[in-house]
């Protein structure tokens, strides 16, 4: 059979998918101009980590390659945290930073568009808007350092890649007090390994803190039908 136009081919393909009992349209409710291209993995929805990760390790289970001064700072942070949980930056309702935000024990909502991925974390209603169109600012080193940094994302095949840099040095990388400097850059990757599972990787580069880049990971599992609750740190912590 010859197709008269790509449009007819597309219509037939969509019809075939629908009549074959394919999964419901992941982009239902999205305006046509915002729909991701056909075949884009659907990360849209609400997700959570099935198990709590409080101290980041490399993928093969080793301690992060801290430089001596950073190791001393890590031990100091950990000791302070043990003595007083309020020594944790997030106990002051400061933002979690990246990648710590991903490891906060709260669900995350992902709203996905053609040119953008929006992460809305339940914890203290913290969001990240990641453009898939705007490149990383060239002058990022001159911009004000931020808790959540400056980010640029792109699709590498079926994997979502997000690069972030321009962080302040006041957040911790995890819940155990792992420090970082303003030279931190983070690459996150998100890959759908099943309809309800995302396999994530986080590569951390910070020449003032670590002797080499290192990679850790996470798993996200879909929470169908879950609606984000209002989480308000400055009420709960009585700042």
């Amino acid at each position: 059979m010859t197709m008269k136009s790509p449009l007819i081919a597309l219509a037939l393909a969509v019809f075939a998918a629908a009549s074959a009992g394919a999964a419901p349209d992941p982009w239902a409710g999205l305006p046509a101009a915002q729909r991701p291209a056909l075949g884009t993995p659907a990360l849209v929805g609400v997700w959570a980590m099935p198990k709590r990760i409080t101290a980041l390790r490399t993928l093969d289970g080793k301690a992060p390659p801290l430089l001596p001064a950073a190791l001393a700072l890590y031990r100091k942070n950990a000791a302070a945290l043990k003595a007083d949980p309020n020594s944790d930056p997030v106990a002051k309702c400061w933002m979690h930073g990246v990648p710590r935000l991903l490891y906060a024990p709260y669900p995350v909502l992902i709203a996905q568009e053609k040119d953008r991925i929006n992460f809305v974390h339940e914890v203290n209603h913290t969001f990240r808007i990641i453009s898939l169109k705007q490149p990383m600012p060239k002058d990022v080193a001159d911009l004000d350092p931020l808790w959540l940094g400056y980010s640029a994302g792109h699709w590498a095949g079926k994997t979502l890649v997000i690069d972030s840099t321009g962080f302040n040095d006041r957040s911790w990388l995890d819940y155990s007090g792992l420090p970082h400097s303003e030279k931190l850059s983070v690459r996150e990757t998100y890959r759908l390994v099943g309809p309800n599972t995302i396999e994530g990787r986080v590569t951390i580069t910070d020449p003032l803190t670590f002797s080499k880049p290192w990679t850790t990971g996470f798993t996200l599992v879909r929470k169908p039908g879950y609606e984000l609750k209002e989480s308000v740190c400055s009420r709960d912590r009585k700042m």
Partner: protein
Amino acid sequence: MRRSKSLKYACIAALAVAGLASAAAAQDLSIIERLTAEDKADPKSFEPTPPPSDPRDFTGVWHVSRFPKTQGDTARQPEPVFTAMGAAEVKRLVDSEAGGRVVADAGTQCLPHGMPRLVFSPYPIRFTYMPGKIVMLHEVNHNVRIVHMDRSAPPAGEPLSFLGYSVGRWEGNTLVVVTTILNDQTRIEANVPRGPKLKVTERWTKAKNIFGATDLAVTVTTEDPDFLAQPWTRRLYFAYRSDLEKNLRSDGVVEYSCEENNRNAPGADHIVTAK
């Protein structure tokens, strides 16, 4: 911060959030009027690229228009009409402030601003859509509103919250959002108090202004039988600001960390002493 145009909004907003100016209802309008006079010379800066053509597609960054009168709607915003109970509470707030003791509202304490206060806070809003929901990401104190398009009423047992529970529907090309189940820790405006039966109805729609640019117009009706003698309806216009996506380097919505440096933090008695 490298954000010349928006810095002045930030300064003005700090005042608005702190609630240090009196006559809150008139306050937002006076801000808009001042900006209109100042910025009239540069009308084109408000629609650097056209917004999506689909009348129901609000995706993008919108910021309070500096040209509210370009919609031909030149009447002043109506003032709220209070019940006796409402008037007494307004007097308490105003008298306390006149005595140098501002009774802090939610935003001053880094809490979510509440409704409808959040809509009138002069910071950018990004709209995004997903199945069954429309999400509004507000720059100010990273407030997030989720409008449930897949429900006709809040679920049973939904707890009270600062931003309440929002249910949305389309009437033609107008997005109608009804918000209820709001807690009692917020105000309608800085010195406009509220009771437990507050209900806020927003009607969002695209509208052309006299320059031919497409604004996002919202009509906000606030009903509070305890504090307002009649529903209070105000109208506000947002301009499409795709330019912010490039200029502000965070896709148009800048990181806002209230808790990091809250210079107007109130004491345990919720009082901010004028500094």
